[in-house]
């Protein structure tokens, strides 16, 4: 097997699924001949044509709304929001319509659609191209939220998302698109939604992460292993529904938890993990539950020095790991 990038995993999933199921189509800004700003859909327009790879107007609410309508009528749309920062105009469509349609219609109208969007900072993108939006959307019942951290999961999770009958928000760590490489087996496979994975076993602390932060945590875990700190790393992979069993089992083993996310700290996704552990594994707790997060400032700054200050990185994570292990 050859090493592939995370974005190649996404493109392969889209390609294979579209070949498999004619009800799947892609719509979004510049997804057609241009292949998307990150080139996730490159080559697909030539292969599947303008009726299945549809360039949309620069209007996110309509991209999602078109997807909802199509999904209610038997199609399986994959909508691309060019940057997660631009998803907010579609908030009403996603939260009020897509997520609740099945419930509102008493189970008559499932909305089998995927909304793909690149998220996260560290790419010099500044305010409008760096946001993490997972906490806002993972909060919404009826909407599944998945975040791959490597090429294998990117392909397998996206396939599961496309085949799922619920609306799935598929968050792609854009900094990892070409930074994170890994093997992708030939042929069809899926990674189930709602299943976290212990990606590294260790006895001293448990670290929970997803997306690019999981990638950084692997590097940090390698680093602190030199000092004898055993890190158990849990890749959450799906934020909603959360695999509480895997989350709790690992914590019961180590008794110490660090949750890493680059979103703002306050009410970030890690707060839910912390609450879960405190609630259901109190008697296994051997240290305060720690979070390493982005700061509570309005945006990821454009200035590279300030961006570095904002972003958790392997050095900051390693330091937090050491401190927690020593507690």
């Amino acid at each position, binding site marked *: 097997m050859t090493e592939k990038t995370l974005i190649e995993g996404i493109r392969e999933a889209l390609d294979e699924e579209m070949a498999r199921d004619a009800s799947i189509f892609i719509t979004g800004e510049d997804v057609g001949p241009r292949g998307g700003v990150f080139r996730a859909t490159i080559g697909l327009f030539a292969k599947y044509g303008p009726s299945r790879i549809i360039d949309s107007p620069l209007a996110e609410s309509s991209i999602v709304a078109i997807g909802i309508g199509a999904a209610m009528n038997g199609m399986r749309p994959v909508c691309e929001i060019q940057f997660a920062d631009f998803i907010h105009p579609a908030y009403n469509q996603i939260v009020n319509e897509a997520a609740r349609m099945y419930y509102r219609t008493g189970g008559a109208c499932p909305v089998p659609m995927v909304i793909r969007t690149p998220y996260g900072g560290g790419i010099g993108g500044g305010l409008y191209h760096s946001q993490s939006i997972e906490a806002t959307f993972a909060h919404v019942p009826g909407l599944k939220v998945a975040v791959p951290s490597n090429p294998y999961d990117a392909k397998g999770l996206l396939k599961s998302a496309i085949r799922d009958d619920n609306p799935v928000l598929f968050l792609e760590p854009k900094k990892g698109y070409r930074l994170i490489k890994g093997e992708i087996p030939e042929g069809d496979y899926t990674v189930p939604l709602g299943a976290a994975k212990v990606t590294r076993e260790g006895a*001293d602390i448990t670290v929970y992460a997803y997306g690019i932060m999981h990638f950084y945590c692997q590097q940090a875990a390698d680093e602190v292993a030199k000092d004898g700190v055993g890190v158990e790393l849990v890749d959450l992979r799906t934020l909603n529904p959360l695999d509480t069993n895997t989350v709790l089992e690992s914590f019961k083993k180590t*008794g110490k938890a660090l949750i890493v996310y680059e979103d703002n700290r306050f009410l970030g996704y890690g707060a839910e993990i912390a609450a879960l552990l405190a609630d259901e594994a*109190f*008697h*296994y*707790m*051997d*240290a305060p539950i720690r979070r390493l997060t982005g700061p509570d400032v309005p945006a990821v700054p454009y200035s590279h020095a300030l961006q570095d200050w904002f972003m958790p990185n392997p050095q900051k994570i390693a330091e937090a790991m050491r401190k927690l292990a*020593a*507690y």
Partner: protein
Amino acid sequence: MGTNVVMPQLGESVVEGKISKWLKRVGEPVKLYEPILEVETDKVTTEVTAAGEGTLLNLYFDEGEVVQAGTLIAFIGAPGEAAPSNGGVVEAQAAPAARHEQAAATARAAPAPSPAAQRVSPVVARIAAEYNVEVSHVRGTGEGGRVTKKDILAYVERNSAGSPLPVAEGTKVGELAPWEQPGLGELFRPTEEVFGGPASTAVPAAAPTPTALPGETVTLSSMRKSIAEHMLRSKHTSPHVTTVFEVDLSRVVAHRGANKAVFERDGANLTFTPYFVAATVAALKKHPMVNSSWSEAGVVLHRQVNVGVAVSLGDEGLIVPVIKNADAMNLLGLARAVNDLADRARRKALKPDDVQGGTFTITNHGTSGSLFATPIINQPQCGILGVGMIQKRVVVVTQDGADSIAIKPMVFVGLTFDHRILDGNSADGFMATLKQALESWVV
């Protein structure tokens, strides 16, 4: 042996005190609770008194020195006795005097435990409780000397040697005050020596040795079949109701303590069982409806009082030999009868006649640690008495109108009865008599 004088902690946030004045000099005699020095903090000035008497052998600090709370500052002992050469942190300020000697010898040079070292995380607290470990005995390697989960697990492993409930260093059962031991003392071994039960009722009974592997079927012994048949029939025959009384055994315990040796000379091992048999007999005499059997023609009141005593045979099952005409025996006779029947039951030397003719049954489920139970009636009898584990419990005693708290050997005794024959009121009348007989035992 001597007494440490330790700098007290004078307030929650206060960590040290200044020795403002020594009220005693080295070599002076000191009486219990006599002031030895004055201590000054930024909150209060107070006197420190002696926790023991003797001669003041050493003062470790001069007036005006500021000393951390918990530090050994003076030593009281017998004249000529060697005093510790210098002061140091002793341990928790409120520790009893007897603990100080041991601690002073070992912990003099140890640093004061930091607040972090005294904090216990939930998982450490849980493991400490599970394995009966004193957290302060565990060396902490965490932040500020905190005891981590790893520390306590390593400690448990070092000290357990594979035992599921290891006892921590320095807390051997024998060193605990009697009231901290759950019914373990010599006085509180009711009938296990008779019935061959575990030596300590506080230790859970060992898991039964499997005679077949999982997935296989265990062949039924004739005893197992007979028990099964009888139990099922009894449940189908009598509507069972159980009433439970709590009985103070102080007088019985005292009587047994005073007479055990006497009985031994007469060749009888005096357990608690004869007392319960005797009290049952007295109650049966007063409440003949309990010594009866149901029949369609009417309730048959038995002329004889034949009391069966259930004897556990381990995994094999149980058997109920009967003390015939128990109402004709005094305590010595009952003790001998109980000894004899139990012994022959264990040796499988009972004759058929020994297990027949019972009019009432007693079962000592307390020997395996049970507090109270709802046994099944031995048909065609009217009732069965279940005796729980004897435990020292804190009870409120009212004397001359004043309430006080006392530690007393208590037991739950339950009567399971045939509701066709008795009602709750009549059953409780029987139990009240039984309780009265046990509680008013003439020592």
